[in-house]
């Protein structure tokens, strides 16, 4: 140990220059950082839903629709229709979209006066009330438009664009916004679609970095100044945090990764966690400086380093192991978080034990701060509280355990409401245009979820088409399903235009292959052959059924998928079931299993670490109780508050395990050392709480202050995360300070007496 101290002081220049070199080395990768807000892209490529979706997209082209929703009292008003018409025309002229669907593009296929008519839904904008009502009545009978392009109450209409652009999401959205602004109107507009979500998330990720990082650093510096009232007390821990953030963030481009929404958490976590080790150093230095005014700076540095080495390394390791549990996660952003934050924390520990002492030797000894003694009086209040608390623990350990058990029972009931997010829609605030349009689409249109079912075979074969038609009719009976479309429904719509009501083939798939081919030939003379390209391939050997529905939980998605399987599983022509909602489903499952795996990994790793540190199985078991208590409570609270388990909140347990266990270690450590000098648990607990307990509380609050910066995030997901991590840390704190001593009083474990 002495050699090491000597090393730190002897090679201080080497340490400082190496640290500076690391900073320089970080700059280059940092400059190459890119943002990828598309969470779908983070899912491994080999999951079935992605493979299936790729198969369908290979035949039918990439589907990346954008929905522009217009809201007004009546969308058939002349001014609104004029605006839609102009915009639709402009979008049609743009190369960025291979499909534009609006009231002016969607087809109206009907039979009238013995003729088949294929026209856009609106050919001419109605100028009189009577014409408008005639159009309204007509739209109500058009199943390609009613409730798909225009809402049932005619208050909403949409323009749907399928993007095939090379432009970035942000560029594309700015073109669309410019165009919408160029043709203003009284309608309120909201947008949804993955490109919009990605663009908005991208923008907000950058914004979060620009806002949260400086505010976080500032709050940390203020916190440090109030704690230490000394420049070095602010500068050195801040410097360690800054370098740890740089290292952690530089690893992302270095590993070839991109920054996701979760990336925002990384620097804030470093602010919350990485300064702890530096804080301990400065606190100990000030304590020694006050207690031993005769000691030189080098002596103080040596003493502090040797005193702190073990606890800093131990708590560092437990934090790294806890967060490192995320490496087992299926979702790449979680894995990234696990890797880079662990490395960042490891560097923070290393720098706190090398760079801070090395730099300290350059500082003159600071004045013995008045505030140091002032603090004593403040601590007096906390001390009194802790003394009272320790008395209660020693006297009534059973009651304390009962209180904890009752609490856990209440929160466990919340687990029945525990939900896993079914999509990433909640990424943006509820009032965001994206979510407004989603709500409209779910309430007034066919929904925002989709599943595609691909069939293979002779797609002019009436038997196959009749089966597809049957599936469609069965699916449409489900209240969640908004629309089902395929070549079969197109043929059926055509049959209504070709045949008159009451005729044999009216509203039916014809019986012969020839008739189907001739319907299609008829359509190719009047409509656009591209109208079918969404449904059937060039050779008429593959067809896709598009199912649009509404769902806000995995249960509904499962219900729809089960129904599809039940209906079509035995169909020999069924090829692939795909669609983005199945990817959502897989992501959701990945979040749940990733959560489970990283949790199990972290939990057992920490338990084993505790067993090793205290050389006792009991230590591992008792030490795990606060973690278990905090975790179960947090999940219960998620159930009660309706906060879903999503890609961000799934990171919670690993992080809180990694941080929360430190408190238990400190308490065990102190109890053990106190019980060496006394047999009285009451006394040992009292001393432990007053000394280590105080430190733990300050430490926990510094972490809470760090994480509370996340409340300023633009992402509600991250705000929820901040809320839950704070709750979780408080629970870890309370159980380490109260539950652990109570259990120890009752069980008097041997390892504390060793």
């Amino acid at each position, binding site marked *: 140990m002495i050699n090491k101290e000597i090393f730190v002081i002897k090679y201080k220049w080497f340490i400082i220059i190496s640290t500076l070199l690391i900073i320089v080395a970080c700059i280059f990768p940092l400059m190459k950082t890119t943002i990828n807000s598309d969470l779908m892209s983070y899912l491994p490529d080999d999951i079935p839903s992605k493979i299936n979706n790729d198969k369908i997209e290979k035949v039918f082209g990439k589907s990346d629709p954008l929905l522009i929703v217009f809201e007004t009292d009546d969308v058939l008003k002349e001014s609104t229709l004029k605006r839609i018409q102009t915009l639709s*025309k402009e979008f*049609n*002229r*743009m*190369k960025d979209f291979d499909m534009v669907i609006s009231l002016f593009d969607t087809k109206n296929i009907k*039979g*009238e*006066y*013995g*003729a*088949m*008519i*294929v*026209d*856009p839904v609106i*050919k001419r904008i109605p100028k009189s009330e009577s014409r408008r009502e005639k159009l309204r009545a007509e739209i109500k009978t058009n199943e390609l438009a009613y409730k798909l392009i225009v809402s049932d109450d005619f208050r909403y209409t949409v323009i749907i664009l399928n993007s095939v652009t090379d432009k970035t999401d942000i560029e594309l959205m700015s073109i669309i916004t410019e165009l919408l602004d160029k043709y203003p109107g009284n309608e309120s507009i909201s947008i949804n679609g993955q490109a919009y979500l990605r663009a908005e998330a991208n923008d907000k990720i950058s914004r979060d970095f620009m806002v949260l990082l400086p505010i976080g650093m500032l709050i940390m510096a203020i916190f440090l100044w109030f704690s230490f009232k000394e420049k070095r007390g602010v500068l050195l821990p801040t410097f360690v945090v800054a370098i740890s953030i740089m290292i952690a963030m530089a690893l992302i481009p270095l590993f070839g990764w991109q920054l996701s929404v979760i990336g925002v958490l990384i620097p804030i976590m470093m602010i919350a966690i990485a300064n702890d080790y530096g804080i301990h150093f400065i606190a100990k230095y000030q304590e020694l400086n006050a207690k031993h005014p005769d000691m030189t700076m080098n002596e103080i540095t040596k003493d502090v380093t040797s005193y702190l080495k073990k606890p800093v390394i131990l708590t560092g390791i437990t934090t790294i192991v806890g967060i490192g549990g995320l490496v087992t996660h299926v979702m790449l952003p979680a894995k990234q978080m696990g890797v880079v934050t662990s490395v960042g924390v490891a560097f923070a520990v290393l720098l706190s034990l090398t760079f801070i002492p090395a730099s300290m030797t350059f500082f003159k000894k600071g004045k013995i701060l008045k505030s140091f003694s002032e603090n004593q009086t403040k601590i007096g209040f906390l001390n009194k509280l802790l003394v009272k608390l320790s008395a209660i623990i020693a006297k009534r350990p059973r009651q304390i355990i009962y209180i904890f058990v009752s609490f856990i029972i209440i929160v466990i009931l919340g687990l029945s409401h525990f939900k896993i997010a079914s999509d990433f829609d909640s990424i943006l605030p509820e009032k965001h245009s994206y979510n407004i349009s989603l709500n409209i689409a779910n309430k007034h249109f066919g929904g925002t979820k989709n599943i595609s079912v691909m069939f293979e075979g002779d797609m*002019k074969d009436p038997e196959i088409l009749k089966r597809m038609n049957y599936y469609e009719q069965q699916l449409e009976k489900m209240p969640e399903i908004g629309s089902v479309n395929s070549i079969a429904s197109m043929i059926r719509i055509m049959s209504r*235009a*070709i*045949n008159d009501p009451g005729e044999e*083939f009216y509203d039916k798939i*014809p019986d*012969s*292959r*020839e*008739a*189907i*081919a*001739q*319907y299609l*030939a*008829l359509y*190719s*003379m*009047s*409509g*656009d*052959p*591209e109208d079918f390209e969404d449904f059937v391939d*060039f*050779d008429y050997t593959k067809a896709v059924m598009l199912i649009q529905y509404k769902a806000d939980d995995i249960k509904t998605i499962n219900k729809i998928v089960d129904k599809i399987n039940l209906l079509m599983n035995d169909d020999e022509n069924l090829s692939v079931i795909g669609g983005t909602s199945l990817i959502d489903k897989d992501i959701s499952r990945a979040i749940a299993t990733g959560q489970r795996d990283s949790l199990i990994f972290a939990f057992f790793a920490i338990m084993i670490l505790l067993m090793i540190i205290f050389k006792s199985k009991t230590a591992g078991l008792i030490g795990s109780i606060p973690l278990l208590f905090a975790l179960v409570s947090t999940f219960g609270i998620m159930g009660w508050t309706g906060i879903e388990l999503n890609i961000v909140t799934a990171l919670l347990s690993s992080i809180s395990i990694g941080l929360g266990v430190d408190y238990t270690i400190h308490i065990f450590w102190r109890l053990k050392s106190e019980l060496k000098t006394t047999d009285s648990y009451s006394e040992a607990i009292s001393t432990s709480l007053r000394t280590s307990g105080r430190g733990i509380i300050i430490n926990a609050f510094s972490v809470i202050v760090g994480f509370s910066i996340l409340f300023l995030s633009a992402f509600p997901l991250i705000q929820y995360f901040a809320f839950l991590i704070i709750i979780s840390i408080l629970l870890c704190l309370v159980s380490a300070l109260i539950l652990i001593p109570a259990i120890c009083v009752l069980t008097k474990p041997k390892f504390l007496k060793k």
Partner: protein
Amino acid sequence: MKTKKNLIAIILIISTTMGFAQTAKEISEKASNVIDMEAMEMSLTLKIYNAKGRVRVRQITMASKSFGQINKTIMKFIAPADVKGTSILVFDYEKKDDDMWIYMPAIRKTRRIISSEKGKSFMGSEFTNADMSKPNMDNFNYKILSSETYNGHSCWKIETSCKNEDIEDKNGYSKRIAWIEKGTYLCYKIKFYDLSGELHKVQSIKQYKKQANGKYFAFYMEMKNKQNDRKSQMIINKFQIGSKLPESSFTPAMMDK
């Protein structure tokens, strides 16, 4: 769908005399007249290729004849087998939308079709309904760009641009550039530019044969879509000027015959 002189009048609006200082419009008008037929009968193969080179082949017979102000065309599918016997009858009026009927033998039914879109695909091919019709010369601005030799033909390069957006929307293009041979006024190549002004399709016209009436007829046409790599070919297998079919053959009631 204006099917007037389908396939023949195709595309070429273009014309002029050999006279000195002809305007672009005159050249275009001449080019249009040199292929204008009053009546004809033919059989043709329409090949539609997708980007991957897969092909749909359609065999069609066709007769076209003018009766007063109305040009009437009847087309019949010969192949593929599943559409064999399907007939299409088109009445192309000078001043109003076409009338069109289709007869479907599988359900023994004749149905009238009403559609007002002309910029759309012709029978699922890269040719459009607008290509099949003779547009109003006054809807366009004409400009001689330069002279150029194309495939051994000394040509004018004539740019024809739509006068307004409505005309663009109706025709499905903003402008086109045609290679018209000096002397014969035959058009050998046309480049079509889409509504945002980018190259969309390139048509090549080959195998002109002079007919007894002094007019020319192209036996091979190809339209390549430069944006999606699809292409379509029209190959004329048989052709004759004039048609002996009586007007009664061009009626919906006779389509099943």
